[in-house]
């Protein structure tokens, strides 16, 4: 049976290349001999509840408001998140899964309430640029890298944990304490981040962590032939597996 990577609403949540995260996940399974495909949920499609990993990307204000209204009534997505399906939510995707967000014009919008975060418009300029961050997530030991480009400020509630702590001039969630992203949902199954790039293309270990949570221990990765050796090295798995405690929590 083919593993299913579910990409949600790329027509409206596809502004910053984040659909690439789904392509990366599927390819990294195929490179391990596991059949995989990307199931794209278009505007008129139902969200399947049996996906292996769910992926949401970034989008502009109007697109984000459309996306949250479209997903609010989705029984498939709710069931998937309730059972703890591994989920990656980037930028607007992160804000949508939270309790609520306020867009630049002041409109307050209830989120899907799956992640204990709330987002408000930031003061001053948008946070834009390349960032590096030290991961705070069990199982990740490589620096995270990405490109941040957002105006919102995301505050974590008691039921969400930070994903990473940014270095240098990075802004992360914009709360001034260097915290980047949010991990929450059932068993910590939702990983939210502001990193574009796409984040999984630039951080293959994070991709493999999501896949391990979904499918258990993965076979070794065989990089395709015909690539420059430096690229093959970048693609090679550096993820060393989940420790026992996380594996129990993730139910893997």
């Amino acid at each position, binding site marked *: 049976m083919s593993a299913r990577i579910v990409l949600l609403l790329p027509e409206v949540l*596809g502004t910053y290349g*984040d659909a690439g995260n789904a392509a990366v996940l599927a390819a990294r399974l195929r490179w391990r001999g596991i059949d995989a495909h990307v199931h794209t949920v278009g505007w008129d499609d139902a969200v399947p509840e049996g996906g292996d990993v769910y992926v949401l990307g970034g989008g*502009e204000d109007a697109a984000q408001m*459309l996306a949250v209204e479209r997903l609010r009534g989705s029984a498939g997505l709710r069931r998937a998140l309730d059972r703890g399906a591994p989920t990656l939510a980037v930028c607007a995707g992160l804000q949508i899964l939270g309790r609520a967000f306020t867009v630049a014009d002041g409109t307050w919008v209830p989120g899907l309430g799956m992640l204990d975060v709330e987002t408000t418009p930031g003061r001053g300029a948008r946070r834009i*640029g390349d960032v590096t961050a030290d991961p705070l997530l069990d199982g990740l030991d490589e620096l995270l890298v990405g490109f941040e480009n957002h105006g919102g400020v995301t505050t974590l509630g008691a039921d969400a944990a930070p994903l990473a702590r940014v270095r240098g001039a990075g802004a992360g969630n914009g709360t001034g304490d260097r915290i980047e992203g949010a991990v929450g949902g059932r068993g910590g199954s939702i990983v939210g981040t502001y990193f574009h790039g796409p984040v999984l293309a630039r951080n293959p270990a994070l991709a493999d962590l999501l896949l391990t949570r979904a499918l258990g221990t993965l076979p070794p990765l065989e990089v*395709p032939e*015909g*690539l420059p050796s*430096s690229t093959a090295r970048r693609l090679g798995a550096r993820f060393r597996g989940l420790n026992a405690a996380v594996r129990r929590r993730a139910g893997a």
Partner: protein
Amino acid sequence: MPTVNPSARTIGGVIPRLPARARLAVAAARSVSGLARRTGRNGSVIGGRVATVLDRRVLGRLAAGRTVVLVTGTNGKTTTTSMIARALGGDAAERSSTGTGGDGDVATNHLGANMPDGITTALLDAPGTRLAVMEVDESYLGEVAAATDPAVIVLLNFSRDQLDRVGEVRTVARRVGDAVAAHPRARVVAFADDVLCAGAGLRSASPLWVSSPSSWTGDAGVCPRCDGPVTHAGLRWTCGSCGLERPPGNWALVRDDAGWSVRGPDGVEVPLELALPGHANRLNAAFAIAVATELGVAPAVAAARLRGLEQVGGRYRTVTRPGGTTRLLLAKNPAGWAQVLDLLDEGPGRPVVVAVNSREADGRDVSWLWDVPFERLAGHPVVVAGERAAELSVRLAYAGLPHRLADDAVAATRDTVGPVDLVGNYTAFHDAARVLT
């Protein structure tokens, strides 16, 4: 929909004499421009900058009395501007030595200097021309239109480009719409198939629509009028909330057994015989013929004038090198790449060198590479170069494309036998063009 704009102005008019302060500004600017060019700079903006310092209203004074066409959009501005100038009778011999100046009786900004200083310089360099055809950066359309009182505003397309620098594309398109609404006397010629472009064009009371197949719908999910969901079915698009839909084209690209032609109002149909390759250029030509017709040129005459155009600022130019030829192509965002991939599909699977930089002018973020369907390069030997070659290589690996890395794009073309295409984004393209031409 009327095909004759009651407020359209005919070419001509009397160019008024400049006031004393403006004459001083113009004289100073010309001397500075000349100095810059003699010292090896291209001098495409400095003259305008100096003139504007001395006379803040110089752009408007230089435009007064001329019939002005402004061309804006994300992709194809430079090529379409060049085509319009030519269709209106400009002699099309590009003055690459100065970069600006008169194409016969048409002033135009050839080097893509498309902000107010560059446009001012182009007008300074072409005194007395009755026509001015200028490409304008999307963010400056309002300012330039306010100064030049355009007869025609051309809206080509709006898609994501340098999100980190230019801002969100919907905001850009909305401001362009505001500029359109502020100039009711201008005839707007806009692309009907592009949702954001149509949204801006509809701010005009009687726009002329150009229509053609296009493979990019990536920024078209949200309605520009009501923020509702827009769905696509082939070329048609409709907003599910307010019912806004693709306007019927007044000018359309059509294909029959004889090849491609442009069909216009009143039964007009003219065949296209372009030297420039690819579908994007056929569409640019449809715009040029529509604008020229609007300004009184017979469509067949306009189409004939486009035939000899072979390259625009180095784009599409083919240069000979030992062992083969190199064709230079520019693609700086996903929509531009969609056009280049269409073009490459039309030919044999020859080698492609792809170069990507991320300097200020390119945008620092390279996430957009993931919105390009590079899978379509399968069948072409591919070489990756440029300052962001490492990220591009990862992208191509995930697209399943074997390839090799090169330190230098131009050197990589020299390692290839036979014809090769070199595709660069903004600075990568210009770096290569400078070395090769």
